[in-house]
């Protein structure tokens, strides 16, 4: 996917509140294209991982039941403002994407 994902990371007390909006069609493979009548092939993110300052904080496996343009929110205790969040994903067709943000 060409469109970059967006990450918002802010501190709430001593907890980093991280929100991620990924760009992906999340096709289940069971939908028919309205124009051609053909099944649109399955195309969905399978793995999402996140690290803070290189340390793993989230390791998710997801399927096509996650909505189009997947949204994920999670919270990390002990992170600090200035720490670097990196979120990466890989989909069922081998496509990958990664983005980073600094905790504000």
């Amino acid at each position, binding site marked *: 996917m060409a*469109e970059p994902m*967006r990450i*918002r990371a802010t501190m709430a007390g001593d907890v980093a509140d991280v*929100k991620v*909006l990924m760009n992906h069609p999340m096709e289940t493979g069971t939908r028919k294209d309205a124009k051609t009548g053909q099944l649109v092939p399955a195309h969905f993110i399978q793995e999402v991982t996140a690290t803070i300052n290189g340390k793993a904080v989230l390791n998710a496996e997801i399927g096509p039941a996650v909505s*189009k*343009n997947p*949204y994920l929110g999670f919270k990390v205790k002990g992170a600090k403002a200035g720490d670097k969040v990196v979120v990466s994903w890989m989909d069922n067709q081998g496509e990958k994407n990664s983005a980073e943000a600094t905790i504000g």
Partner: protein
Amino acid sequence: MKQKIIMKLLTGMAGLGIALGAVSAHASPESDRQEMIKYYTSKYPNVKIEDYVFGALAFDADSKSQYDAIMEFPPFDSQVEAGRKMWETPFKNGKTYASCLPSGGKMIAGNYPMFDEVKGKVVTLHDVINDCRVANGEEAYKHTDAKTMGQLTAYMRSLSDGMLMNIKVEGPKATAAYEEGKKLFFTRKGQLNFACSTCHVQNAGTRLRSELISPAVGHAGHWPVFRGGDNLVMLQQRYEGCFKSVRAVPAPAGSATMNNLEYFHSALSNGMPMKANVFRK
């Protein structure tokens, strides 16, 4: 002739329980708006008029909280971003949209539709954008195309976020266009024989086919919407949808009929803050 129509309208509005007191043959758009607000707020004293910008959501907390959750980080951001690129890309001749529009296009959406005295008709934001395109050697966009007019205006309208709706109806020609729009709003149409007012005035806040109906005040300022968070719909496309829902043949988006309707309809939301790009079910 005009008197007859207005008397019919007044009877129609009286039939809706709207007091005739302030509504006369020389009623102003402002008094129409006030009458409508009085009607809604006396029917639903517990719903704040400021919340009417959220439409049906003002009447249902469960729906509103889903809207809030999704609006926190909207899934349609990339479409608005595509609109930004369109907005900022110069035409082949080097000029930009900002050069055509008052204030470079910022904080102006609430002034539209407006009555163009020179052209002698109501013009919408889409018309102004297309005039800009054509004047600069580009083709006009189709009024209902999501990828062009949709995404461009999704971004462009966001430059007016927070602006209070500010529709002006001044002079006899503008007033006539406003009254045309008002007439259409209150006229029964289609196989189902409903007027816009049947649902959005008489039945606002109640359910029709499991859907909660939104009031007409507050309607016109939160557009375009993204159905399901993804499917961009512009206001006149929604009008077309409503016409089809009552099994009437809609006038095409961008026609004088639809523009006059939008003129009247938007004036009902005067004074209310606008917001482009919202989630809708």
